[in-house]
């Protein structure tokens, strides 16, 4: 009896220790962005059947902004998440998601215009990106990653974002 209690105690201490370690470990921002992208895909409904894959397209220049390897080839609701590097935003029309990092407003507006009414979830790190027509804008608030949603743009694109996701948004346009 005593021995069993002792082992229990040891085990719980060990587990607690591990958990504490995990908790204390700061997650790198790039990984967080990757997780966010993944989660956005998770709470999004696309109008047309997308086949067996969800294509996340990234413009060539932005490759370093998040740890793509963390989420690539992961399943989202049974579909494989693929990451495709595209050279121009025009090529994004065949994607389900498009991620662009911090861009100038003019560039953003150009991309928004190009993809208008196309069911591609657009995500950006650009400040006020959402206000300029991007669907989701990721931002840092008090060192914590958050996001804004331009739901009008989402609807125009015939996409549906889960209400659960919307609840989490800092701002909804």
């Amino acid at each position, binding site marked *: 009896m005593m021995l069993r209690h002792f082992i229990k105690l040891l085990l719980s201490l060990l587990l607690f220790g591990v*958990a504490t370690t*995990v908790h204390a470990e700061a997650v790198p921002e790039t990984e967080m962005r990757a997780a966010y992208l993944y*989660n956005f895909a*998770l709470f999004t409904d696309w109008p047309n059947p997308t086949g067996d894959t969800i294509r996340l397209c990234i413009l060539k220049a932005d490759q370093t902004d998040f740890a793509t390897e963390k989420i690539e080839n992961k*399943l989202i*609701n*049974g579909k494989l998440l693929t990451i495709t590097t595209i050279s121009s935003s025009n090529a994004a029309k065949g994607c389900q998601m498009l991620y662009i990092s911090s861009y100038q407003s003019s560039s953003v507006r150009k991309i928004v215009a190009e993809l208008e009414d196309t069911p591609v979830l657009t995500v950006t790190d650009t400040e006020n990106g959402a206000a300029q027509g991007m669907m989701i804008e990721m931002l840092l608030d008090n060192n914590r990653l958050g996001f804004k949603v331009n739901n009008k743009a989402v609807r125009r694109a015939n996409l549906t974002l889960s209400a*659960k996701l919307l*609840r*989490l948004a800092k701002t909804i346009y």
Partner: protein
Amino acid sequence: MSFINLWKNTSIKIKLMAIYFIVNIAAMAIVFSILIGYEYYSFRNTLIEDLNVQAKIIENNVSAALAFKDKKNAEEILSALRFSPAIQRAEIRLSDGSHFAEYRKPSLTSKAHSDINLAQSNWYRLIMSYDLQLNRQVVGKLMIEAGLQGMYLSLFIFSLITMLAGSLALAGAFILSKRLNLTISEPLLALTKLINQLTLEEDFTVRSKVTSKDEIGLLSNGLNNMLDHIEKRDAELESELAQRTLAENNLHQLAHYDNVTGLPNRHFFNNYLEDAINQARNANSPLGVIFIDLDNFKIVNDTLGHQAGDSLLKDVAHRIQEALNETDIVCRIGGDEFAIIMKDDAEPGQAEFIAKKIIGLLHTAFNVHNNNIYVGASIGISFFPSQAAEMSSLLSNADAAMYHAKSLGKNNFQHYHADMEGRIRRRLHMENSLRRAIDADELEIYYQPQVDVYTMQITGFEALLRWNHPKMGMISPAEFIPLAEESGLILPIGDWVMVTACYQAKVWQKTFGEHLRMAVNFSARQLKDDAMVEKVLHALLITEMPAHTLDLELTESSLMDNTATSVGKMKELRNAGINISIDDFGTGFSSLSYLKRFPLSALKIDRSFISDIPEDLDDIAITNAIIALANTLKIDVIAEGVESMEQLEYLRENNCANAQGFLFSKPLSVGNMELFLRSLKQPLQLDLKAEKIQN
């Protein structure tokens, strides 16, 4: 044990009520337990369902917050749980086990944080754990802790209501069953009452009025049937008993009553007397017994037949009954014997009164088959306990007294005296001895000579019987002859005497002279013997004694008792040449008419007349008259008991030719008589002086 006894002694009414109570309470307890149990699980399941639903909603809502690690949002979502009052707190943990978000019921006072642990689940705390899934992956865990207090409260209220309802139902059932019980206990009570009545009053005509068709009704029917049966059997028994009583009465009548007189018989008498003696002994009171023996009843039976005898007995019974008090009882205890038991007023005076009355009543002639018949009675009286302490002695006393009365000449009564007993005993002894006496050669004949007073020559002898008893010595004929007559022994004795005397007469005739006669006494009983004539003639034949030398001496009374048949026999004897004389003439019931009827040849003057001669002038007158009578009838006369010369002279002077007595010789045995005869001059001439010297 005591409970079982208590239960056994409890009335069915109470038992039924108790059974109702126990059964109802048990049933209610079961129902209550099942209901509470069911309610408990129902409540619990509802709660769990509720928790499940809540958990699902939370899971659904919180997934995004979880995905984005938005603790604030997650806690907002969790706060929706406040609408579920049972939920105390909730907690979301990430898949790595780390705490993520939590909810606490606002009313919870303790703010201290502690992880919800499944192991903390207990009777008042339900802890549920749910996996939170997102994208088919467990991303966290939802723990919900719900308090069960609310459930217990609901259960408590529910049980209160159930118990209230149960109590109401029990009360209702109690009132109802009390009334319904009456339908069972009332008939049972009625039956019990009936059976008690039966046992107490033994009245089997009552019937149970319970008519229901249930078991009590069956019992009631059975009881009624049984009563019918008993009543029927009673009736049968009664009639059987009545028949049996009738039969017994008939038997009793036959066994205890005499069908000739209608009087109780000897059997009844014995039983009755035994009871009466016991009663008298207890009451210390006297009791009298009167024995009545009819005199001369046998004559009626013999001459007029048994029917006449029965008729006479009937009339006698009537007359005896007339003489009695109501409480006296008369029984016929023998052929002509009656006995009276005096219960009340049993004292000698009263007994004497009754005896006199009976003798008086019997004195009047009875008319039997157109014959006037006179019947006397010899009556003996004895008393208990003054004269006899036992029934047997009482009876023998009365018997002795009666025989005494009979021996005193009949038609009188005698009280018992103690000395009668000795007499009776002696008599009984003598009777037995007498039976042996003939064979034992104890009997002997003595002879007394009869003398011609003028010639002084012996003319003959009288044969006199003597009994030489080995212990009692010489016994007088006056004592044993009546005994022999009563017992009938007189017949063989008489026969023996006749033959012996005749033989002796023949011997002396050969030796001393052909003319010598022999006088033999002949009793009344012998006279009645049918073979009497034959026997006498046979004796003469075998002894070759001439008939004319035989004198048969009869007493007056034996002649009185006899009738035409006797006269016929005497005439036959007379015709054969035998002489017949009357012995002891003048002492019996003299009726001179028989002198004419009977063919007599001599009279013997009784010694009582001779003995006082010549002093008593009356005796002289009587003797003169007898001698004159005999001379007139031309028959011989002989004087007995002559003891003096004066008497001899008187006889000579008054023409009494023959005499017998001590003056001439006392009775002598054969041997002495022969010596005496041989001493005399022929032809047996007496020389009185010489003779006297010799004696």
